[in-house]
């Protein structure tokens, strides 16, 4: 039974979810300009770990064990969510989906690349690692150029020995295994042991840590979709492989992501809180929801510090799940 996708029949909960996400986005974008009694990163030394009080000190949601105001921290955390965690989740999901779908579709035997590409890659690696022997470098580059010239006479008529098969499945699986076998925290400690990272670098690190899970999920789903009759029919009708993959197989393989993506956002935030807990990545002057939750460890009785970001995270997650559900039921059949 498929309900007609009329916007007037969307339930109230869906509108509430939209409203919350809009409020979050607004608060995050306007956070630096909102008139708050306390700044997010300034500690109030006289009221450390103070409970919420509506009169007097002006800490409406209390302070955390470092003295930071929780309300200001919530708004600053919303901004960080908008600018870092959401893009990281989106990027990780995209990268994971593409890698997993490609690995599942082409497997180990069906992706063939021209030899010149490998030669060029080898030359770049040689130069990058500064291996001895510049003469060899130029010989390889020349060889790569010659091969690509030979290729150009006719892509379809290229001889089989000029193409190599890229074992894409093993590569992607190997990468995901590597990233999944090393305990996440050891990996992050190693990466973040150096100088502190800028926003784009942090985004990159989070993406690298979070993409394997979505990749494996999408790959497993693609293995099932690949065997479906409609893919066979598309091949039989003469569509190019790339078009089949992009237009027909990929949307079906990404279906489990709708349920999984909000959870991976929550996972990324708890990773952030583990990092804040270890003190790696960025200092305490960069306030985030994960960092506020991590500060509860210093004084376990500060329930208000856990309640504020916790409830905000919970409502955000529920809102995202609601929207994902309604997108599924109104968009697909």
């Amino acid at each position, binding site marked *: 039974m498929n309900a007609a996708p009329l916007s007037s029949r969307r339930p109230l909960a869906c509108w509430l979810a939209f409203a919350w996400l809009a409020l979050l986005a607004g608060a995050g974008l306007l956070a630096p300009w909102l008139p708050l009694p306390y700044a997010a990163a300034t500690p109030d030394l006289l009221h450390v770990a103070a409970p919420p009080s509506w009169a007097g000190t002006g800490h409406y949601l209390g302070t955390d064990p470092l003295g930071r105001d929780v309300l200001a921290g919530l708004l600053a955390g919303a901004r960080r969510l908008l600018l870092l965690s959401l893009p990281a989740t989106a990027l990780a999901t995209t990268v994971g989906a593409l890698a997993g779908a490609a690995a599942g579709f082409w497997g180990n035997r069906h992706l063939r690349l021209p030899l010149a590409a490998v030669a060029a890659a080898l030359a770049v690696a040689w130069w990058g690692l500064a291996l001895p022997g510049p003469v060899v470098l130029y010989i390889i580059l020349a060889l790569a150029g010659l091969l690509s010239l030979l290729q150009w006479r006719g892509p379809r008529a290229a001889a089989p020995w000029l193409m190599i098969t890229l074992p894409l499945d093993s590569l992607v699986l190997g990468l995901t*295994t590597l990233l999944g*076998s090393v*305990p*996440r925290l050891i990996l992050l400690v190693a990466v973040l042991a150096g100088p502190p990272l800028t926003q784009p670098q942090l985004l990159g690190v989070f993406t690298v840590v979070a993409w394997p899970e979505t990749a494996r999920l999408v790959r*497993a789903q693609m293995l099932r979709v690949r065997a479906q009759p409609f893919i066979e029919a598309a091949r039989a009708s003469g569509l190019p492989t790339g078009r089949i993959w992009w237009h027909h197989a990929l949307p079906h393989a990404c279906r489990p992501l709708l349920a*999984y993506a909000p959870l991976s956002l929550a996972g990324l935030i708890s990773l952030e809180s583990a990092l804040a807990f270890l003190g790696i990545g960025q200092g305490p002057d960069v306030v985030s929801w994960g960092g506020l939750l991590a500060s509860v460890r210093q004084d376990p009785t500060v329930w208000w510090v856990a309640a504020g970001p916790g409830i905000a995270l919970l409502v955000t997650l529920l809102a995202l799940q609601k929207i994902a559900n309604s997108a599924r039921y109104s968009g697909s059949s």
Partner: protein
Amino acid sequence: MTGWLVARLGRALGAAWLIASLVFMVSRALPGGPEQQALPEAGDLSRPTASMVSAASQAASQQALRQRLGLNLPLFYVTRGPGPRGQWQWHGAANQYHAWVRSLLHGNWGYSYRNGQPVLALVRPALATTLPLASAAALLAAGLALLLALYLARTPGGWWQQLVWAGLSGLQVMPLFLLALGLLLLLANPDVLNLLPAAGQAPPDSTAGQLAGYWLARAALPLLSLVLAVLPELTLPLAAALRHETQAGYATTARAKGLTAAQVLRRHALPNALLPLLTTFTDLLPTLAAGVVVVEVLFALPGTGRLLAEAAAAHDYPLVVAGVLLTAGARLLALVLADVLYLLLDPRLRPTA
């Protein structure tokens, strides 16, 4: 089929060795080393000193320590000189990597830097604590996830279903240490409820049943924390997949033929929705490994999570590399198992080409 399996296992072992080698080299290339923890802290006034500790004498002590631990050898067969365009140098067999591989092939997993004990002797009792905990948590969570997902997939929802859904989302959102801390403060607190039994050991003359009882009592709260932390990740995607399956054509046909909604869910929708669950289940290992560290620190359990975390902090490389080798090996075996199960569950996935 068996040929494919043997090839898969061989690849898995090779991958594990590669991962361990990578961690071997990266850990030794990081700044800082075991000498920071073993030698007295610089700039400390608590021990009155008679002679000046100059940079030269400190460097001499560090050098002596590195020589005793074998860290003064070059790292690999070839190393690059310092600087942006350093020269590559060949070292032959006198390097740390070669020594490690040779001792590994002889069955010697190395000795811990902090106390000189063989690494396996340190890891074995810790595994005896962690493995039962982690596997019990995984099995319990999987079973509960199946039951809860079947409950959540029933289409006429109701308030209870929404509440359970919101509760699971709340659990997903909460970091594990907050959850464990909350449980500790609720259930092991003399002010609220005092259910956690004493720290300490069972008397040495206990029977197997009594030992199991002590273990269960001590492991109850950690187990509960781990299960609650892992449950949402398993349940929510499975519930969504089940809901999707109940919309398919074959489900309608089955209902038309007279099966109840629950029967349709259990017999027809569940096998089709199990595949993503299998993926998430094999991905459970890293999540559990990370969660076990937090739980062991909070509840003071002497397990592998705590052992490896402390070894990583103290730069005790042999222990870290052995731990990563074990974790990587376990993960890869789980992947092979998952692949075998995929093939058993869905005949369309059998390798044909």
